[in-house]
């Protein structure tokens, strides 16, 4: 909100020489100053001058010698502009003048001609961006040679604050409101002048216009005044200037007066051409279902129909003429039919208090937000209406009918709230006594009666942010704190006996991320909102959860997999000649509730059970360093499993995992207390899928683990935490090369060996795989090293021999393996 200091000074004697203090104070009050603009500065020395002659300078074709008179006789000035002639009035900056931007004017000699000043363009004067030529002032009333330019143009030096007002402070969204807060904090007297009564005619207003409200719940109060003998014309210069400084375009005296009062007092008003109002009056009613109206912006609006949002009942407040024809959407925007025109002579001026929630609903559903609706939805002062109407009448200056039409329903009255001293300390942690609190609240319009136990506060009706008790107590305390100064409340570091810390899941997640960094992977952050086509491209069919209002049409689905995002991230890097990379991500993937969802409190008031998408926290990794493939994915998984002390996760071949290479993929299946649970997948990305996401740089290893499962020891069991005694006796190794058919997983062979080894087996490790000459077709040799030891003795050769035999027999029985 652009707020000129001169306007603020209409209400309190703010010191124009202390702008920075005003800014600081506004900030401390929560009226944040986003910018400060100095206007009309540096023009004090510039005067109006009459051009008497223009002469060529010998040897110069760009500049001319101009003789001007600024009331003190002829003066010669050199000038490069060509857009004026003798007889014109122009601005002259004499020698010694300092223009905006600290430009000092000096006597100069150009091509032998002496220049005793400078004729100025609008831009040089900081008045506009116009630099086409000298600002010609012939049409400016009051421009005479020698008159200071600021007097001629009616501009004075001013400071304009650009203030952001929080959404809960409609009272401060006005010049008077800002002045009230600021004056209170600075200890200055704040006065809201009563509008001088405009000339009142004998005709009672009831004889000229009518007012009826059918929808008193949507519009609890409306006031209408009538102006007669109005001459629609441009506004006086001072008023137009203030509107411009506040960022509003002047239109005509009636509309400008209405806008001026909205900016000044925060109350929107609406002037109608009374002679164009059917039945010479206003009727306020609910819009009928599907009723249509063309608003001032030329858009046809359909009303009275509930929208999509929660709590939208489709109730719209319509302003109609007395015959019932709609002429505007109450509090939001008028229609064109009864607009003020040049021929308007009688004005019905309407001001109302609308139900804030009703305005908010209608404005949101129609996507129509105006200066008026933004104020009404936050809540205007229902008892500030009369002043606003009087002020508009005063500014228009036309004669008024006697009295005003005033229809009221249940209009909010001032609330009274008791705030105990105990509560003030309990909330703020600083003891502000009741007398002090009263002295803080009173200047900003609150009534405050200090008592022994606390303060009885009367809340002014322009403060809809202060709720009724009990919540209003906190609201009043905030006002006390705000005016006391947040910075005056000393901080205190609280302490409590409960220890802080991470949960085991959070610690393990960090461990997982660190392990991934340890294997050379970089953590990435890929989009959660994706195109459903990505899912289909990786063979993931079925429903995805859709976003109703995406920013980008294609990015409208919650991801079901991180594969597309990670492969694309790989492609991004590969395209920048850095494809030798491993990436991982820890993030959420979503499932459609039709497949797997979860219930939660929902609906209006949280009274219904709503269905939400299932969410899974996954670790996913793409491995594309030189030589990376499914083997490396296995290796990375083993590092992770080791880091987490997992002891029972099987790698089970599976050719049907979406997105993965069908003959180089497996599921990770955990054996835990609750049986077997798939907890992830690993292998290689299907090359066709990788290509679909823009990566064709070779094999891509893939690892994906559901952290919610893998980190749950009930699902994926972990090695016991109790220390295992390490044998002090030497161990014996047995190497077995077993010929096994390709169709038999090595894991099956290993399981048989481990089972046969019993308690004496310390470890079993696959150390070589051989295919080639000497092997039967469709077979390979798997070489295992079994290490045996006993806690209490050295194993004899005999014992080791028996263990070896048992292992071979077990492998043969279980898998058909034969010793090579």
């Amino acid at each position, binding site marked *: 909100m652009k707020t000129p200091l001169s306007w603020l000074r209409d209400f309190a004697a703010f010191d124009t020489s202390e702008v920075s203090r005003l800014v600081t104070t506004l900030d401390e009050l*929560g009226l944040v100053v986003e910018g400060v603009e100095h206007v009309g500065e540096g023009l004090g020395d510039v005067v109006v001058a009459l051009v008497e002659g223009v002469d060529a300078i010998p040897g110069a074709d760009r500049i001319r010698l101009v003789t001007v008179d600024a009331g003190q006789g002829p003066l010669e000035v050199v000038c490069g502009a060509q857009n004026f002639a003798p007889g014109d009035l122009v601005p002259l900056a004499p020698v010694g003048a300092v223009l905006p931007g600290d430009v000092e004017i000096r006597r100069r000699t150009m091509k032998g001609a002496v220049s005793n000043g400078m004729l100025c363009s609008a831009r040089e004067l900081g008045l506009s961006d116009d630099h086409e030529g000298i600002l010609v002032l012939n049409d400016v009333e009051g421009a005479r040679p020698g008159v200071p330019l600021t007097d001629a143009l009616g501009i004075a030096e001013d400071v304009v604050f650009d203030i952001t007002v929080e959404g809960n402070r409609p009272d401060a969204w006005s010049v008077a409101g800002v002045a009230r807060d600021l004056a209170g904090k600075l200890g200055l007297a704040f006065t809201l002048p009563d509008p001088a009564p405009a000339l009142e005619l004998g005709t009672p207003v009831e004889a000229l216009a009518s007012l009826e409200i059918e929808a008193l719940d949507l519009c609890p109060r409306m006031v209408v005044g009538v102006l007669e003998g109005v001459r629609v014309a441009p506004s006086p210069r001072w008023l137009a200037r203030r509107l411009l400084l506040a960022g509003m375009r002047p239109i005509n005296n009636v509309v400008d007066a209405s806008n001026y009062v909205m900016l000044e007092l925060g109350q929107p008003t609406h002037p109608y051409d009374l002679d164009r109002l059917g039945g010479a009056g206003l009727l306020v009613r609910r819009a009928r279902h599907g009723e249509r109206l063309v608003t001032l912006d030329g858009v046809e609006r359909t009303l009275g129909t509930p929208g999509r*949002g929660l709590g939208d009942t489709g109730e719209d407040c319509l302003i109609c003429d007395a015959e019932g024809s709609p002429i505007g959407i109450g509090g939001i925007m008028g229609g064109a039919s009864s607009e003020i025109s040049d021929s308007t002579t009688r004005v019905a001026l309407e001001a109302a208090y609308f139900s804030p929630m009703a305005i908010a609903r209608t404005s949101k559903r129609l996507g129509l937000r105006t200066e008026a609706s933004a104020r009404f939805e936050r809540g205007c002062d229902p008892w500030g209406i009369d002043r606003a109407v009087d002020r508009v009448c005063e500014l228009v200056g036309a004669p008024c009918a006697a009295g005003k039409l005033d229809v009221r329903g249940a209009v909010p009255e001032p609330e009274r709230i008791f705030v105990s001293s105990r509560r003030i300390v309990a909330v*703020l942690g600083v003891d502000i006594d009741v007398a002090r609190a009263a002295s803080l609240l009173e200047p900003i319009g609150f009534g405050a009666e200090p008592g022994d136990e606390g303060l009885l506060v009367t809340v002014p009706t322009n403060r809809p942010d202060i709720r009724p008790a009990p919540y209003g107590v906190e609201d009043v305390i905030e006002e006390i704190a705000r005016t006391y100064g*947040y*910075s005056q409340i000393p901080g205190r570091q609280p302490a409590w006996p409960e220890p802080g810390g991470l949960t085991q899941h959070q610690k393990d997640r960090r461990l997982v991320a660190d392990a991934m960094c340890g294997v050379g992977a970089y953590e990435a952050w890929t989009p959660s909102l994706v195109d459903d086509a990505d899912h289909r491209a990786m063979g993931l069919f079925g429903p995805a*959860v859709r976003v109703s209002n995406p920013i980008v049409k294609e990015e409208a689905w919650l991801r079901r997999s991180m594969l597309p995002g990670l492969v694309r991230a790989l492609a991004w890097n590969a395209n920048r000649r850095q494809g030798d990379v491993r990436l991982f991500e820890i993030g959420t993937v979503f499932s459609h509730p039709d497949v797997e969802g979860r219930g939660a409190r*929902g*609906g209006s008031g949280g009274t219904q059970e709503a269905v939400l998408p299932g969410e899974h926290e996954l670790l996913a990794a793409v491995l594309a360093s030189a030589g990376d493939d499914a083997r490396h994915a296995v290796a990375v998984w083993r590092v992770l499993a080791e880091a987490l002390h997992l002891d029972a996760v099987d790698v089970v071949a599976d050719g049907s995992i979406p997105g993965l290479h069908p003959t180089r993929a497996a599921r990770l299946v955990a054996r835990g207390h609750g049986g077997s649970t798939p907890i992830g997948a690993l292998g290689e990305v299907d090359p066709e899928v990788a290509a679909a996401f823009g990566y064709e740089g070779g094999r891509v290893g893939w690892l994906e683990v559901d952290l919610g499962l893998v980190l749950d020891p009930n699902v994926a069991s972990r090695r016991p935490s109790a220390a295992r005694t390490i044998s002090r006796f030497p161990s014996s190794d047995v190497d077995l090369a077993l010929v096994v058919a390709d169709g038999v997983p090595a894991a099956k062979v290993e399981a048989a060996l481990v089972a046969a080894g019993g308690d004496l087996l310390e470890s079993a490790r696959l150390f070589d795989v051989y295919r080639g000459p000497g092997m039967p077709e469709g077979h390979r040799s798997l070489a295992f090293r079994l290490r045996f030891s006993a806690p209490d003795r050295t194993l004899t050769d005999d014992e080791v021999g028996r263990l070896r035999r048992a292992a071979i027999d077990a492998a043969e029985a279980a898998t058909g393996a034969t010793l090579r």
Partner: protein
Amino acid sequence: MIGTARFAEIERDAADALVSATSLAALAEAQTAVLGRRSALASAHRDLAGLDPEERRAAGKILHEIRTHLEALAAERGAALAARERAEMLDRDRLDLTEVTDDEVCSVIRRGRLHLVDQTRRELEDVFVAMGFTVAEGPEAETDWYNFEALNIPPAHPARSMWDTFYLDLGQPETVVLRTHTSPVQVHLMEEQAPPIHAVIPGRCYRRETADARHLPVFHQVEGLVVDHGITFADLAGTIETFTTAYFGADIHSRLRPGYFPFTEPSAEVEVTCTICRGKGCRTCSGTGWVELAGCGMVDPAVFAAVGIDPEEWTGFAFGFGIDRCAQMRHVIADSRVLGENDVRFLRQF
């Protein structure tokens, strides 16, 4: 002389060539030979020029049919060959993922890095854990109740315009959202756990805003919630200051000024010493020496009412700020969009 017999011969030879191709490469060659510019078919087509119009039309029709047939045959053969080649490739590739030996575990000679946002999240968590906070988390999809209404933001309330919201196509329209802040986790915590509560809540949030240098539609927040006996605004101010100096350094301080959030009362904006100029005043801080970092306040009694906590017995404060923004401030990152690009040259700096 062009005759039907000749056409049949051309067609038969061509079909033979296509069907007998045993690889995609051979098929491509065969296609050129029987359908290309130098094929018998093309030459037969050229010979049509010498015929009278009626004959030409009839013969042309036959040739066109032959071409269509051959093209279909080529496509069919192509699909079959592609499927076979993929099957062969898959078979050749077949790998028993349980026969990987440990020696194949590649020797790792370099280290990866956590994403800057994750590093920042950890640092923030660690600072708060050291101050006695636990770390809580919650879902990213929420109902209107958790994201708004229980936080004292009723349906259609104008304050909702403070958060541009993504709605999900589930249930009644506009009842399920992607959380716009981490605050719904506050509600879950207070519903599920009796006070005292001292928790920070990091997580991913969503706002329907076009990405620019300072905003991302998907971003990360950390929220704090303390509910205990005797908690006051002074405790809030102290906690914010302790955090600020602990995270940013001893010469960076915080201050509070009045603000508005529906779920806190009193509410405050947190400003901290500009980390660029260390408070001297620069372009980033518009010469003020301070930059906005966070929002905070005392938990509104209406929020306590929604979760059934007695506001006479318990008081509390909450705060929230952007993890990405902290990272941006600490590392002087001009454009936040670089955070989602996953370019390793960017990632490996931190």
